[in-house]
């Protein structure tokens, strides 16, 4: 070994060093694979635990996963599960889409017209800060029980976060970019279309994600309280009948749908949250 040079290899040959690095990489890869599998494992564990506990208590309090699966198959057979899933899904979608269609332009206009914003900002904030569920009794009086009531409630849950995010998006456009447009003679329309609107997109995407979360709560909530229809309607019906397995079936469907919707919200937010393309 050379005298004056500090040896950091611990006396290993280059070959042995490469070997140990490879081994470390392999260990890392194995650890990542285990981490990816863990969520699935935990779900399976939960189901097993649920089965064991469920079998040992009164079935009114808790239905076992196997009973729930059986009920699910039965309810698919009678078409009630799919029909009601569809009802929930379309009211949710229509309310959400209307919320975006109305909320995005409304928020942008408010962002561009300080006078209008000064008029309605307080009301918008108040409406946004109380849960829409708190307005159900009033809405029932106004709109009766039915699909109109549900659509309006869902729409309201979706539209407010969209309005607020669009408005703050328009307000936070870099003023240099607006000046840039002016310097090169852009018309008002062009400044809106080529600068303000695209700059607002990431804000809208975040608002959309929030809207999804709030809209799911309202959709299921209003069905539970007022409807025989939809997944919430089924839950409320079978819950009241103490048919716990039949109650769980729409609950599981609702949970899966919610997960899917949150996932969609995540994707939308990530895709539009930055103007740059995702790193390759």
């Amino acid at each position, binding site marked *: 070994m050379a005298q004056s040079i500090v040896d950091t290899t611990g006396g290993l040959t280059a070959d042995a060093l490469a070997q140990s690095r490879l081994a470390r990489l392999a260990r890392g890869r194995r650890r990542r694979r285990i981490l990816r599998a863990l969520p699935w494992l935990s779900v399976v564990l939960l189901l097993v635990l649920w089965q064991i506990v469920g079998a040992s208590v009164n079935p009114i309090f808790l239905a076992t996963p196997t009973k729930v699966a059986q009920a699910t198959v039965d309810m698919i057979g009678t078409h009630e599960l799919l029909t009601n899933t569809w009802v929930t899904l379309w009211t949710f979608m229509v309310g959400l889409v209307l919320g975006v269609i109305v909320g995005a332009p409304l928020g942008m206009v408010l962002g561009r017209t300080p006078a209008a914003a000064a008029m309605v900002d307080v009301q918008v904030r108040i409406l946004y800060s109380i849960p829409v569920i708190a307005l159900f009794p009033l809405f029932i009086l106004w709109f009766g029980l039915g699909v109109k009531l549900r659509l309006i409630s869902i729409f309201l849950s979706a539209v407010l976060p969209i309005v607020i995010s669009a408005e703050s998006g328009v307000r936070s456009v870099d003023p240099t970019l607006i000046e840039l447009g002016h310097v090169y003679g852009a018309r008002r329309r062009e400044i809106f279309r080529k*600068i303000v609107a*695209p700059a607002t997109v990431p804000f809208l995407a975040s608002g959309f994600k929030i809207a999804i979360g709030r809209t799911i709560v309202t959709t299921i909530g209003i069905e539970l309280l007022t409807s025989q229809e939809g997944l919430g309607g089924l839950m409320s019906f079978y819950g009241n009948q103490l048919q716990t397995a039949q109650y769980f079936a729409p609950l599981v469907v609702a949970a899966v749908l919610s997960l899917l919707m949150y996932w969609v919200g995540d994707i939308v937010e990530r895709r539009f949250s930055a103007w740059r393309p995702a790193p390759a």
Partner: protein
Amino acid sequence: MTPSGSTVARVEGLSYSYLRPDGVALQALDDVTLSVAAGEVVSVIGPSGCGKTTLLRILSGLVPASDIVGHAEVAGHPVLRPPAEIGYVFQHVGLVPWRTVRSNVEFSLEMRLHRALHDDERARARQMIEMVGLTGFEDYHPHQLSGGMQQRVGIARALATDPSILLMDEPFGALDAQNRRLFQDELLRWQQQRGFAAIVVTHDLEEAIHLGDRVVVMSARPARVLEILHVDVDKRERGRSSDATAQYRALQDRLWEVLLPENERSRAALQPA
């Protein structure tokens, strides 16, 4: 280089006051008279916050014509709306973050023409990208570029409309000293290639002398023209020959002499009463 006869930009007896958001009226410019000949580079220097940027904003039509006192014209016409003859280089570059380099350079033309670009116009943008040395980076987004490269895009964007005068607001302020010097020399080369005139606002004495055919020294707010120095060094020789270096030194000393009391005045004005 001697500036040829015709004037591309001129202000006469120009004064401008504005209200700060807290309601205090401030005068930014006081009776400023200045003209820029075709192909001439004029540096404007003065204490920070003195109103140099305001001068550019007025010439580019960003300040409503009704708000100014005096006269401002570009290419022989009073500035009532943003003139088609100017290109503007912003202090903070102001690239559109969701557009690529190519699309940022095309932006100025798109706005001017109010339509999608034709092939020859796209070719012009491509030519500008080539000139500023960004060929190969056309599909990059601004956040993937260094500060210097971003300002190159800003200059290419300004030149894409073939302006007769470039208004530059501290264009190299964000660059380190070495890059700044390289960039200045390049700018001079582009300027001689394409023959545009320029007003360069800066707070860097050396930069003012290096770039300008003339250096306009402004006072602390409200900005008045204190002195106009001529830089009689051939642009190709700048910073090279010892003769030029000597003249630089002399000019720099003179600039300091004029500016020092102004800087003190401006600092005193910032002190709480």
